[in-house]
């Protein structure tokens, strides 16, 4: 078995009903492993971008891209090269605040990680944090010592550096 890595695949798709179904169904049917999937509009009104993180070896990744490309509603698709990729994820974390001292401990952690406190209650804080998944993992590890009440992560979204884009012809 070849080594598997997390790879990011970016697909430009028709922005219409059913497209997300055919994409996710393809992953289920072909037994590809989705680590995360995010969907949002693009700069073009009738196109959306689906950013998928898959855990795959070279061969599987090749199939992921080719099979996605075969879907008629997928207009363009490519792997984002690991050395020229910018990835971001956003997390909202509701942290337990046992005491006043700990509240200030939490807030200094948030500052170090360049997060923001977006909601405050007597027993909790809600923190917004953005960054690479690694950075978010590290922050969450710290927060676990206080106790995480609730967590929502968006999953990865990504673009490649430079002027190149996942074009319609690809």
């Amino acid at each position, binding site marked *: 078995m070849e080594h598997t890595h997390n790879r990011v695949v970016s697909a430009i798709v028709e922005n219409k009903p059913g497209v997300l*179904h055919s994409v996710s*169904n393809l992953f289920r*049917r072909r037994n590809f492993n989705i680590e995360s999937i995010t969907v949002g509009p693009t700069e073009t009104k009738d196109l959306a971008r689906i950013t998928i993180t898959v855990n795959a070896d070279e061969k599987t990744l090749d199939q992921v891209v*080719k099979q996605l490309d075969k*879907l*008629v509603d997928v*207009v363009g698709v490519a792997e984002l090269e690991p050395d020229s990729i910018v990835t971001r994820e956003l997390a909202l974390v509701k942290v337990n605040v046992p005491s006043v001292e700990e509240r200030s401990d939490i807030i200094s952690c948030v500052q170090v990680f360049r997060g923001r406190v977006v909601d405050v209650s007597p027993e909790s804080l809600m923190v917004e944090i953005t960054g690479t998944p690694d950075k978010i993992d590290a922050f969450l590890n710290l927060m676990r010592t206080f106790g995480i009440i609730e967590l929502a992560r968006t999953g990865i979204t990504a673009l490649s550096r430079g002027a190149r884009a996942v074009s319609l012809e690809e």
Partner: protein
Amino acid sequence: MTKTSGAKALIQSLKNQKVDTIFGILGGAILPVYDALCGDQNIRHIIARHEQCAAHAAEGYARASGRPGVCMATSGPGATNLVTGIANAYMDSSPVVALTGQVPSTGTNTSYMIGRDAFQEADIIGITTPITKFNCQPRAVTEIPKMVNTAFYIATTGRPGPVLIDLPKNIQAETAEVEITNQIDARGYNLVTQPDLAQISIAVDLLSKAEKPIILAGGGVIIANASDELVKLSDFLMAPVATTFMGKGAFPEIHPLSLGSIGMHGNPAANRLISEADVLLAVGTRFSDRATANLNTFAAEAKKIHIDIDPAEIGKNIDVNIAIVGDAKKTLSIIYAAVAKKLQKNRGLAWAKRVKEAKEKLSPLIQDTPKDVVPKTLLSELRKLLPENAIVTTEVGQNQMWSALYFQALKPRTFISSGGLGTMGFGFPAALGAKVACPDRAVVDIAGDGSFIMTEQELACSIMENIPVTVIVLNNSVLGMVAQWQRLLYGKRYMAVHLGKTPDFVKLAEAFGAQGFRVGSIPEFHNAVKQALKSKVTTVIDVPIGSEEDVVPFVPPGCGLPQQRGDY
């Protein structure tokens, strides 16, 4: 511009696509379309007796003629009954366009009915997403013409496949100013037909140095109408041609370089020689597990060249040395031109000798005049009785594998069988579809008793619609192929395979108004086939055979092609 209903716009658009036949069954949710068809002189509607058969018939029509086949059903159960047929067309890359009725997208009680579990609502778009090349549902009457064009374009180009259009009833009924255009709308559909010349030149290099070249032709060669190009290249290279099961007919099986098909029940010579070859040129095949058997020993000595029109087939099942994405016909003719420029004809005499010797030693065909009523004899006799251009379909199981081994296909599109899905019951409705497409040719379904029972009700369709075909039931009173597995792999522990002597297929045929014969000898078989070919109604020929007959050779699951077992 005058206003047209969605249903009329649909029919107009179908005519624009040169549709002349629809196989279908109506129901409430597709009534406006049937109303628009009422009295139409140009489109023949054929009532199938089960929607599965409408889809299989559309596929038979498509595979015999090369033109897309069209089937139609109502919403809910009508649509879900199509599913097996659509899945079959998907696996065998057949251009089938399925039209389904759907509950209205707007209704009296609500502004949006779809999704509210209305009567006979089924999410056929969701259900068929993994088994169609494309599916769609119009939201407005005006979308219909473009959608139909797009559906046909996608179904028939590149690697063909089934497409489904789901038509909400209100969209069929509503009227609007509709322009019947030739436009399509598929910017995400990319089609590569022109092969990469750099890859071709590497392939040509490899082929010119080959001492033991072999060609493996898949169904793609038939779909691309590339048989002539294949024969030319094979002749020039003196490369023997094996086919996959789906490729049967791509290369004339009486040609001295024909090896028949490879696979689990492949021709022994083909299975043997593909293991000896030093260069394998595979065209239009997806390297299905039934064809290659264990990949570790598949063509293990050979450098591999893979030509396919579907980029996703490259590297999916097998790693190859050279991959060429392109149309088989174009690619083969470019390769031929390059090879012919570079090489002398008729090299590799040692290999030619080996091919001849292997064919003689390992041929499953019998030479002498046989008397026994066994599949081998029946099918090689059948070849002699049928004209060259007769179309043969098969059911699934032993009957199918015997047909592959003993019935020689001489021309492309004359051997039509359910390869990828292995759908029992496919052969008979597919035969009806083929006969509708090619009314002047003889069409024969080679059947097993178990399979024929699955779709035998279409005898009614064949009689009512005047579609005379011949069904030869190799009647072993068992689900033979499964019984063979239980015999060879489960220590003869037979479970749920005995079907008994019911029905009486002669009486069954007669009950439908068809002609029935039971034959017990080879002369009787000759006679029955001759009468069937002359008959104006469908003929069922019941041929009782032993129930413990095996298909050999047999490559047991997990083994490689060189490990074939059998008494050849």
